[in-house]
């Protein structure tokens, strides 16, 4: 199979990039391991704060539907329920439909693989009933399954608060937040207020000392400063933060840089969202963990840069659109957390002079 552009990942960034390119007449193929488009947005029933100016305020799954719908009029090849398993020597991508493996040759590739949730370890964290906040959210909102009755949340990010609110809505008793830092991580004052109003305690400087149970979690011990609190729970939702999914970049031989604020190791990229492999671009959480609004803008920017690179639009038009989008990205990301915006800029500056070379040949 041959295509102008292959987009790996049909989440917000991948779909936003697809729109930019398909609307300029490019031949676009999108591959995603899920059978639905929109990625993690499908589980997000919360209203997404600060979307780009061309979007109305909406919930995550509505945004997924909107992004899918705006592609309807274009002739895009969808490889849903397909996985990228590797690359061939000639640069073509090995994709499986779970029956066969076939090669896809693309002139340019946009990698929008998103992020993975990080684990949080404590004694007996492998017991059933311990899961990430994303898993709990998927169970409630996609599978309509109640993951437990009595829960605690480890972490206090925006996503952790959203998960707690959604768990409460479906009748799960949330007994507390366990935050290892001295303050709440979420910057959403409204949500914090909402959680406090519901009477959910937030334990700071605290961690799970141990989980106990036979075949499933039944009880946990929480260490809060000098005291230890025992809670009966059958659900522990952990939020260890998120990191970019890198295996495809690694296979492609891209170099990486470390930025804590962007989720740790991030592929090196320049202002064109282009990696050090000239034909490989990236977008979304894979380019640094941020908010949904920012992910969309990075997708649009990657799309426009690819259009320019293959000559589908002139430099003048591309520059005009990019100027606007970079301003929007700055506004959205600075409003959310200026440290992330600064880290992104540092990361892009490092593109020209990577900090460490050959670091992955261990």
């Amino acid at each position: 199979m041959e295509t102008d552009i292959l987009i790996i990942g049909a989440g917000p960034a991948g779909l936003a990039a697809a729109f930019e390119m398909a609307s300029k007449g490019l031949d676009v193929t999108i591959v995603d391991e899920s059978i639905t488009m929109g990625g993690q947005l499908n589980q997000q029933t919360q209203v997404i704060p600060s979307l780009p100016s061309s979007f109305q305020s909406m919930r995550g799954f509505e945004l997924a539907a909107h992004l899918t719908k705006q592609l309807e009029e274009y002739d895009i090849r969808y490889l849903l329920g397909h996985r990228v398993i590797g690359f061939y020597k000639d640069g073509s991508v090995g994709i499986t439909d779970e029956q066969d493996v076939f090669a896809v040759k693309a002139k340019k590739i946009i990698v929008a693989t998103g992020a993975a949730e990080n684990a949080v370890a404590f004694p007996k964290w492998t017991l059933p009933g311990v899961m990430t906040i994303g898993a709990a959210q998927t169970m409630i909102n996609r599978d309509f399954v109640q993951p437990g009755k009595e829960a605690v949340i480890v972490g206090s990010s925006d996503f952790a608060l959203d998960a707690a609110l959604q768990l409460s809505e479906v009748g799960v008793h949330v007994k507390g937040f366990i935050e290892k830092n001295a303050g709440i991580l979420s910057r959403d004052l409204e949500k914090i207020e909402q959680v406090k109003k519901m009477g959910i305690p937030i334990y700071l400087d605290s961690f799970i000392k141990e989980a106990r149970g036979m075949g499933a979690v039944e009880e946990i011990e929480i260490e809060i400063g000098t005291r230890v609190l025992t809670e009966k729970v059958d659900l522990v939702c952990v939020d260890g933060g998120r990191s970019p999914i890198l295996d495809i970049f690694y296979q492609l031989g891209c170099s990486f840089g470390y930025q804590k604020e962007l989720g740790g190791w991030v592929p090196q990229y320049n202002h064109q969202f282009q990696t050090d492999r000239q034909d490989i671009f990236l977008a979304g959480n894979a380019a640094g963990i941020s908010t949904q609004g920012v992910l969309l803008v990075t997708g649009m920017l990657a799309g426009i840069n690819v259009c320019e690179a293959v000559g589908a639009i002139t430099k003048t038009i591309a520059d005009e659109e990019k100027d606007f989008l970079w301003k929007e990205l700055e506004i959205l990301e600075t409003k959310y957390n200026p440290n992330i915006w600064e880290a992104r800029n540092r990361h892009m500056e490092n593109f020209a002079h990577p900090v460490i070379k050959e670091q992955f040949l261990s």
Partner: protein
Amino acid sequence: MDKSTIICRCEEISYEEIEEVLTNGATTFDDIKRLTRCGMGPCQSKICHSLVASMIHEKTNTPYFQIPLPRMRMPLSPIKLETLATNSTSFSSVKSVMDEVELEDGKVR
């Protein structure tokens, strides 16, 4: 952290086992992997690599930007051999190798 805590859930490698190889001079995820099987299960270190990185950071005082990522190999996620051995004929694959094996009376020649 309690030393019995599992760090690699696929291969059931504990904090203590990783601590031991770090004490013996391991500095990267791949060192630890080769010595303990940490990260060699079905998830291929997707779950444990960040936990191991923080252990390396704590035990050896190495800054995170100097702790390399684990080596990631193909296939990027588990795939049935049958699927990998696709019947496509347009490019070389495991299947084409398998096609060259002739069966005779149930035996592989």
